[in-house]
């Protein structure tokens, strides 16, 4: 993370590609496998994360001068939990069928490292507008990653996209199983690393 101020567009782009939560930073991996067996579920969770990330960043940024540094961690936790509860209740009311499948993972957003990390390293030190842009970029980056993974898993595993049949014939059942989730993420991560190394001279994702 460079110290010179970035324009808002640069911040959004950084979240989407440069510091993409799943493929570059490799945090908040749990949902990337759990809910990507269909594009609908992946998109629903992605949208929830965009909402929570943006609102948390905005709130933390607004309150950054009032929060005592010693107790900031519990306060951030409570802010995140508040917004997660909002989206949880909203989804439970208006998107009942999807909520039945991914409800647990919506609630789990509260323990996402990525949201907490952005509040801590970015929103806590920056103005509201740039924090919102940062949150938006990070959220959209997460959403994109979810869509890419679920695209391959649903297409290969069920021969469908968004529930509409695309390919006929026997699908690769393995892609829908838990195994397929790990496999898809591993292969895609390797692929993006390859692109990064081949065309941008990068060193690959921040390998743990």
């Amino acid at each position, binding site marked *: 993370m460079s110290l010179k101020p970035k324009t808002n567009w640069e911040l959004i782009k950084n979240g989407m590609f440069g510091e993409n939560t799943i493929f570059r930073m490799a945090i908040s991996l749990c949902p990337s496998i759990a809910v990507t067996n269909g594009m609908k579920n992946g998109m629903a969770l992605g949208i929830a994360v965009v909402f929570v990330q943006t609102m948390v960043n905005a709130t933390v940024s607004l309150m950054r001068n009032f929060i005592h540094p010693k107790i900031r961690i519990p306060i951030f936790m409570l802010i995140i939990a508040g917004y997660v509860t909002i989206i949880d209740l909203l989804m439970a009311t208006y998107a009942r069928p999807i909520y039945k499948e991914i409800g647990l993972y919506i609630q789990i957003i509260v323990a996402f490292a990525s949201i907490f990390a952005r509040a801590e390293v970015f929103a806590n030190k920056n103005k509201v507008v740039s924090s919102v842009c940062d949150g938006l970029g990070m959220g959209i980056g997460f959403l994109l990653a979810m869509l890419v993974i679920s695209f391959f898993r649903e297409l290969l595993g069920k021969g469908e996209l968004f529930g509409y049949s695309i390919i006929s014939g026997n699908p690769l059942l393995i892609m829908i199983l838990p195994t397929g989730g790990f496999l898809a993420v*591993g292969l895609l991560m390797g692929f993006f690393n390859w692109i990064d190394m081949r065309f941008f001279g990068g060193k690959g*994702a921040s390998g743990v």
Partner: protein
Amino acid sequence: MGIDWVKLFELVVSSALINNFVFTMFLGLCIFFGVSKKMETAVGMSITFTAVMVVSAALSWVVYTFIMVPLDLGFLKIIVFIGIVAAFVQSADIIMKKVSPTMYYKLGVYLALITTNCIIIAVPLKNAGEHYNFFESMAFALGSGIGFGLALIIMASIREKLEVADVPAPFRGLPISFILASLIALAFTGFSGLITL
């Protein structure tokens, strides 16, 4: 309250093997990939994790059953549970530092990581959702902890071997670990149907 030992045993086995949190519910992956590089850290993490899991599940169960249900505050459970876990982890950290510094230097690092682990919040939420009684909640938490530890130790033992393997450059580090995890997950699907609850 009579204790149904058979049911409890089934719960432990099913949450450790059949519904293993890492391989079938995909929770706690950040930590799973983060600390499975070395056997020693993996063992330390599993011990700390199982202990914290059982205690925080007990605390959450008590608060949920005796405070939140009578007052009809179920919708606040996310905020309350994360608060309980965070507070418990923080106090365990402080107490351990004071009472047993040697243990603190061994396991203290893992304590800080635990708050950001999805499993620790998923277990109380699931306990509340399934209306488990106190002993069932404990059994479920214990089984989940053991399952997570098992996953960590299997993964760590493979990754230690992986250090000397010749992996293609773009796949070094995380991507190959994901593919490994996928193979272990395939093995774990063999447990499904072992016990039906």
